[in-house]
């Protein structure tokens, strides 16, 4: 560094002059003071300017030459022994804090966070598994109910067939014809019809071979046959 100062102020300026080095090895600090005029010293113009600005009065200083004082200070820069430093147990608080923080961050990012993520993932996995089980359970129930429905459908078909046979017998015996409305081809309509009269069909099957009055609607234009049929149907179910 090169600067201009008043000589006696240098006692304060150079107080605690600090030297630091990153390089290991020998170094030399040079302190040089140039006092005078011209060359390596201040010029006459600079002296005059500063002389006036400092409110000096009278005849200015006579500078006969440029004088210099050079002092050198040898510095031997040695490497820090890191193990010794750590072993000294006298680390400053800041370094201790910094080290602790670094270790904490390292542990946090390498151990704790991955562990937490792993745990969360596991948790999620177990949740998904439970949901799947529930779903499976639900589907089993559905299947069971479907089977039951099928069974009931089969039952109803059977009953329907029974009813049809009754009707066909009655038809054959009466010689008339039964309305097409009674001929259900659609299973759904079947089921809906059976749903309403499920018990009545059960009771019908139990009544097989018994004589009972069953209202039968027969659409015909042959009133003679109708009379015979109604009579037959009135008295007996085959």
């Amino acid at each position: 560094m090169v600067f201009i100062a008043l000589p006696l102020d240098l006692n304060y300026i150079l107080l605690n002059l600090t030297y630091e080095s990153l390089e290991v090895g020998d170094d030399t600090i040079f302190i040089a003071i140039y006092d005078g005029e011209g060359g390596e010293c201040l010029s006459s113009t600079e002296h005059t300017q500063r002389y006036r600005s400092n409110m000096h009065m009278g005849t200015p200083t006579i500078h006969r030459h440029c004088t210099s004082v050079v002092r050198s200070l040898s510095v031997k820069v040695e490497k820090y022994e890191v193990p010794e430093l750590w072993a000294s147990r006298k680390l400053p608080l800041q370094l201790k804090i910094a080290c602790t923080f670094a270790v904490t961050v390292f542990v946090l990012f390498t151990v704790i966070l991955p562990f937490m993520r792993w745990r969360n993932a596991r948790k999620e996995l177990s949740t998904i598994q439970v949901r799947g089980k529930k779903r499976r359970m639900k589907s089993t129930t559905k299947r069971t109910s479907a089977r039951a429905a099928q069974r009931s459908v089969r039952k109803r078909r059977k009953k329907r067939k029974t009813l049809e046979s009754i009707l066909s017998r009655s038809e054959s015996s009466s010689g008339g014809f039964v309305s097409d409305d009674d001929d259900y081809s659609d299973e759904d309509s079947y089921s809906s019809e059976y749903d309403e009269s499920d018990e009545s069909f059960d009771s019908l099957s139990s009544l097989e071979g018994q004589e009972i009055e069953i209202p039968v609607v027969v659409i015909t234009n042959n009133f003679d046959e109708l009379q015979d049929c109604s009579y037959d149907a009135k008295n007996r179910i085959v």
Partner: protein
Amino acid sequence: MDVSLIAIEGELKVLEDEEISFYLKGNDTSGLNRTLRFQMKTIPRHGDLIDVNGRILGINKLTSDECSFPYDKGSLIKFVGKKDFFNEPYSLERGFIESNFTFAAVAPSDGYKSSYPARQEIKVININDPPVLTLPYTEKTIHAFSSLSWDPDDCREGFATSKCKSRMITDEIKVNDVDGNIDFVRVNISSSHGMLSLNSEYLNKTDFASCSNRTQIDLEEEAMWHCKGGGNSDREVSSNLFYSRRYLFKILISTKALYSIDGIYSTAS
């Protein structure tokens, strides 16, 4: 007191550390043309008055040299100022330092009748003196500074002590200049590979700015140097020619300068 005797006041200028011979003058207006000698009423505080016989003139002492009619010559004495003393230029900081003495004309032939005292002013003009730089040691060992170089003695920024191993604190550097703070000096501090920092409290007493480009300031002279750095963690490679002794010798020869290298003063012819 004889009013016909007159001591004539005067003023003289002398360069620092130089002696000057001069005449004390007086007159006898009585017409008696008495031979005069001069008596010191007060003496200068920053120097000595010596008469022709080499005798130091104290208070009330008479000069050996006589002043005879027609009194144009006077009485010869010599002023020798104290070493490094000067009273010009003066500043508000330094104040005005008087350097004068008073004397009276005495007629030894007429019962040592004396005149009223007169004042002789002496202005000692400053001649620039080189400053003296003292380092308490010439060699020191420190430990390399790095991120791991924290010192066990809690050496940190703003808390630098002499115990800091990672930093070298050059305490007890003394600068003395007999000229005081009259004239500014140029300071150059450098190292080969280190970082240098000045006392931050007193950076306001330094001037890095106005001399950073001296070609604009002084066109008459070729600028040999410019201010560098800022006083904080400055690096300057000292391997330039300037710091080699060979180069210093060249300067000695070329500028006919007085140099002090490592405490040995030498004058170039």
